[in-house]
Each structure stands twice: as C-alpha cells, then as structure tokens.
C-alpha cells in the first residue's frame, strides 16, 4: 500500500513535471510593419508572459501579399513549414475559405462554447463565407479623411464629420495654393493610388464591387467596379490631379503621408490604421482632424479593411487548441483595448469602447473615435459587407492600373470598363481552378 502510494506520488510528480515541460510552441505569421508591428509584437509578448504552457513564435513575413504567397508555398510543399496562425488581408477571405487549409473559426468557437454574438456585426459579416465565419478580424480598419486643421481654419472652411464627394472637391480646390506661374505649392488633396479607395467608395455609396451582391448571395463571377459611384469618384480624382489640386504620389502610401505631414497637402485619404503613424510624423507642425469617408449621394457605410487571422488545419490537437487559446487571448476586451489604442484599428468585440482606458484615450485623441463611429453608423447590408471574390490580389493590380490610366487622362468610365474585361478573366480562371 505504502509502496503503491509512493509510486502514485512519483507518478503524479513526474506527470506534472511532464505537463510543465510540454510547452506547446505555435507559429504566427503577420504582416504588420512599423508602429503596427511593434504593437503586434507587444501582444505576443503579453500572451507569452501571461501563461507558461504556450509559446507563440511570431514572425513578420513582409507584406500581406508576401505572407499569403509564403503560405501558399508551404501548402504546396505538403504543408511543411506552414504556421499555426496566419494573418491574411481582407481580400484573401475567399481564397482562404476555398483553400480548405483553414479551420473555420465558427467551428472552433462552437466547440469551445464561445458566444459569436459578442462580435461586432460588420467584421463578422466580412469574414463570413458561404454562411460560416472563417477568420478572426484581428485588425479591422476603414478609410477616413485626414485634414490639416490649420489649413482648414486659414481657408475659412468649417470642419465637418461627413463629406460628399462634391463637398470634398470644393474644399480641396479652396485649400490648394499655387504660385504665380501656376505651380502647386500646397495640394488640396492627396490620395495614394490604391484600389481599396475605389472599393470603399463603391460600398459607401451603396454600390457593389462584384456581382451577386458583392459575392455574398452566391460566388461572384464578375466584377462591377465600373459602377456609377466608382466612375464618379475616379473621374473627380483624375480631374483634380490634372488640375494640380490633388497630388499624385503613386502607389506608395508612405510618400503621400510624408507630403501630408510636411503640410504640402491639406486633405488626405488613408486608413484609420495610418493614424498613429501620421500623428507621429506630423508631430506638432499642425493639428490633425479626421472625418468619415466620402460618398456619392447618400452615405451607406464602408466595409472593413485590414486583415484577419486564420487557424491552419492539420496540426496535432494540442497545438490547434493552443492556437485557439491565443485567439481567445486576442479577443479579451482589455487586450483589444490595448491593441486599438496603440494602432487606430477598431475593436471587433462588443463593449471594448466602454472600457475606461479606451475612453480616456479617445478623449485624449478624439481622432481615434472617427473609425469607430463610422463603423457604428454604417448600414449593415451586402454593400457594406464588402466584395468577396477570388483572385482579388491580381484584380487590385488591374484596378490600380486603371486608376493610373485615368489619372493621366483616360476617361474613368473607359479605364474601368477595360479593366473589368481583364478582371473578369482573372475571376473566371480563379473560379475554374476551385472547381477542379
């Protein structure tokens, strides 16, 4: 009996030692650079410090495109080297669901009795594919307007929260400063060349970017980015660029941000996620104010942008469970609070904005509330759910080329319609490759 008890004791001790030593390590690939990267690494550090069973090994894998490409490469190699958790941008949602490589978040949530109604509806809608939630909207953003408050004041333009495209154009013209020779000294507006802004303008004006109601009712088979809102937006943008009212700094957001931060552009359009970086760059040169994204006739609401994290299939149960623990950690209100204060993204679970730390931060820097309020006041429908389709990476390139063509003089309608032909071919090819 005594002997047996001793054996049991040894067994328990060894067992607990064994458990203690069985630290699970999971890999997390993300694409957050700069300020956002620092905030992401801080979350991972917090998680690793908060418990001693799981170690998250995080890794910056370059741009979203590069991250997705590396995932694809790993899957091609039979899964060798794939991560447990990967951050993939918004437009990768269709691909991730089609790949079959992802454990839908909804399955895990149900298995672990996690209440899905805690999620804010828009991010949840965005990552819901064929009726099932696939990814956790880790960093959700929307596009907003940035104003140089001093320039607004000097020009006698009152600040407003909501801007139609026509209002924005008028303001941009008045804010433009040119010298005697007609050379622009300060631009009224600066928008980086990015398909995202055309997409969002479509949604915010109640239009779809791809057919079958943004691919939400059924798989999208055609793009609809030649819709009236997109055409009007691109038309105005191009006209302003040609007239020296809007700056064209190319596709690189950082270049446009430098221009804005140097006071050489009075209004700019970026993501909410750019806020921290922009504020840091501006320093105390002038005060920055932000407002909702513009629309054509009636404001519908923007879709979320940013990225989601997905759990990759095929790992031992213990590792998948560990990955889920990490996801749960990211969803905790206090962690969400820390994340959004550090970055300018908005929370994806309810109740975070009522936390004292968040309230204080919002009082200190009211610009951070713009995105949240824009989200809260957005209509929840298939337009603001955002377009879900495959081949989006390639299609964005096509749209960006169309923007560039329009900026140098091709009529927006023509540029977008021609681009539609190319984009439809890409989409058709993608859909065919899924059905194989």
């Amino acid at each position: 009996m005594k002997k047996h008890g001793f054996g049991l004791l040894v067994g328990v001790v060894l067992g607990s030692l064994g458990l203690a030593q069985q630290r699970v390590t999971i890999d997390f690939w993300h694409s957050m650079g700069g300020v956002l990267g620092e905030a992401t690494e801080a979350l991972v550090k917090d998680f690793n410090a908060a418990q001693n069973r799981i170690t998250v090994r995080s890794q910056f894998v370059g741009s979203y495109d590069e991250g997705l490409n590396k995932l694809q490469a790993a899957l091609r190699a039979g899964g060798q080297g794939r991560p447990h958790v990967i951050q993939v941008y918004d437009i990768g949602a269709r691909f991730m669901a089609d790949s079959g490589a992802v454990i839908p978040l909804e399955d895990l949530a149900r298995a672990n009795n996690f209440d899905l109604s805690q999620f804010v509806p828009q991010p949840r809608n965005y990552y819901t594919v064929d009726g099932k939630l696939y990814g956790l909207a880790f960093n959700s953003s929307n596009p907003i307007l940035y104003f140089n408050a001093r320039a607004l004041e000097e020009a006698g333009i009152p600040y407003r929260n909501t801007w139609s495209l026509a209002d924005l154009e008028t303001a941009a013209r008045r804010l433009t400063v040119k010298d005697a020779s007609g050379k622009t000294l300060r631009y009224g507006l600066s928008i980086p060349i990015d398909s995202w802004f055309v997409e969002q303008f479509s949604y915010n004006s109640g239009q779809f970017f791809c057919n079958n109601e943004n691919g939400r009712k059924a798989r999208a088979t055609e793009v609809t980015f030649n819709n009236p809102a997109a055409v009007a937006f691109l038309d105005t943008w191009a006209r302003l660029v040609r007239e020296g009212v809007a700056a064209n700094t190319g596709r690189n957001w950082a270049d446009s941000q430098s221009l804005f931060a140097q006071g050489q552009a009075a209004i700019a359009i970026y993501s909410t996620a750019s806020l921290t970086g922009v504020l840091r760059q501006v320093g105390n040169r002038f005060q920055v104010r932000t407002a909702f994204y513009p629309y054509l006739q009636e404001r519908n609401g923007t879709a979320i942008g940013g990225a989601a994290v997905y759990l990759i299939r095929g790992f031992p149960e213990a590792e998948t469970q560990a990955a889920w623990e990490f996801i749960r950690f990211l969803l905790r209100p206090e962690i969400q609070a820390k994340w959004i204060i550090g970055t300018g993204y908005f929370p994806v679970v309810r109740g975070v904005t009522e936390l004292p730390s968040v309230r204080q931060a919002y009082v200190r820097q009211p610009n951070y509330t713009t995105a949240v309020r824009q989200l809260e006041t957005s209509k929840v429908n298939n337009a603001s759910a955002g377009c879900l389709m495959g081949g989006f990476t390639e299609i964005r390139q096509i749209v960006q080329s169309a923007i560039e063509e329009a900026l140098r003089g091709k009529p927006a309608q023509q540029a977008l319609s021609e681009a539609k032909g190319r984009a439809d071919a890409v989409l058709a090819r993608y859909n065919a490759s899924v059905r194989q």
Partner: protein
Amino acid sequence: MPSLPRWLARPLFYLALGVYAWLLILPLLSLLSASFRSEADLYTPGLWPPQPTLEAYREAVQKHPVGRYLLNSLLVSLSITLGVLFTSATLGYALARIRFAGQKLLFGFVVAVLLIPDEVTFLPRYLLVQQLGWINSYAALIVPFLASPLGIFLLRQFLKSLPQDLFDAARIDGAGHLRTLWHVALPLAAPALGALGALSFLGAWNMYLWPLVVVNQNQMKTAQVAIAQVQSVEVSSWNVVAAVAILVLLPTLLAFLLAQRTFIRGIALGGLKG
C-alpha cells in the same frame, strides 16, 4: 577642333574628372546624408545633415538584426565562393589536363549549361529546393550555386593555356592528378582563382531574387533581401532605411577598396554577371 593650350587643358581635365566623379557618387552621398539625420531633420534641404546624429544607426541596429543579416550574407557568399573555386579547379583541371573518353562531350555540356540563364531555372529550382525541404535554410541559399559553369569554363581555359612541360615534370616525378592539381596547377592558377573568387563573391553577395523566394524567416535573410524588409517595416523612416543600406554597403565597399586589383581582374576576366 583646335587644341587647348596646355596650361588650360590640365585644370580643365581635372575639373571634368571631378565633376563626373561627383555626379556619379552623388546618390550615395545623399543616402549617407540621410543616414546621419534624425527623423525630424529628414526633409531639411541640403546635402550636409543639419545636426549629424547616429540615431538612425542606433535604431537600425536595435530594431533589426542587421548583424545577423550581414553574417548570413557573409556565410553564404564565402561558402559559394569556396565551392565555386573548388568545383571550377577540379572540373576545370580534368577538362584541361586529363584525357578521358567523353571529355569533349563534357566540355560541350559545360558550355551549354553556361548559356542557361538563371531566371529560367529559378522557378523549377525553387520547387526542387522545396521538395528537398530546404526552404529557410543555408542549404537553399548555398548549394545550388556551388558549381558555376562560368568558373569551370574560365579555369579550364586558363589551365589549358599553361605550358605542358610543367605538368610533365610533375608526372615524371610520379605525382597523381590530385597532387598535380594541388602542387602545380593551383599555384599557377592563383591569379585566375583570385579573380574568379572576387567575381563569385560579388555575385553571391548581390543575389536578390533567389533569397527573396527561398527564405521567409527573418533570421535567415541575407542583407540584400533584408533591405526590402526594413524598407517595408520602416515605411517612412527613410533615415533608418538609409542607415541599414549603408551598413550593407560597407563590407563590399571595404573589400573593393582593399582588393581593388583583384576585383577588377575578376570583372575583366569573367564579367558575365553584371
């Protein structure tokens, strides 16, 4: 065209030299200047930084494993260089100094491979390396480049041009091919090997596309690819990007300044990879 008087021609010549040299190194000077600026001074006009500071270097080294990147590059470049020297010397010797059946065919093969552009093979080579499980390893960065058809070709040509009696003497003494290679061919080929080594090193150090696709873990990145990484992380902190670029430039720059002759000979000899 009337010739200029001598007292004028000289200074004008030096002036032209100076202006041209200045224009050529201007982009580098502008980079150097950016690396010594704080973020606040980044856009202040002028080539000279208003308040020179090491802030950008400090931030570069603290936030990015620049040392590790450089070590990776050094390890990869040195390994490739040694490998190329080895395979070029051995195969070059065999092709130049041993007669065996199929030798002509083998030489033809080397020449044919020499004509295969890297950009064609990199896709399937990537698949191969992936199947071997080498993604994110030094093996992926090094092994595919250990044999260089150009190196083999150059060494073969060089060894072939050496006088036969040097080799005959060795063979009469009873030396086998390995010893002849080691004691006769290699010492004689030292200048060619040095030049080939410099050429290989530069080529390996400059590799961009290949490391970009076979490595995605930060700690395995080579310095060249790391520059792209730093650029995408730092977004608008050009001073930090510039500091990293200068740090990556320094090793080759120093090597070039110290062993300029060898580098020049290497480029003049092979001069294939620009």
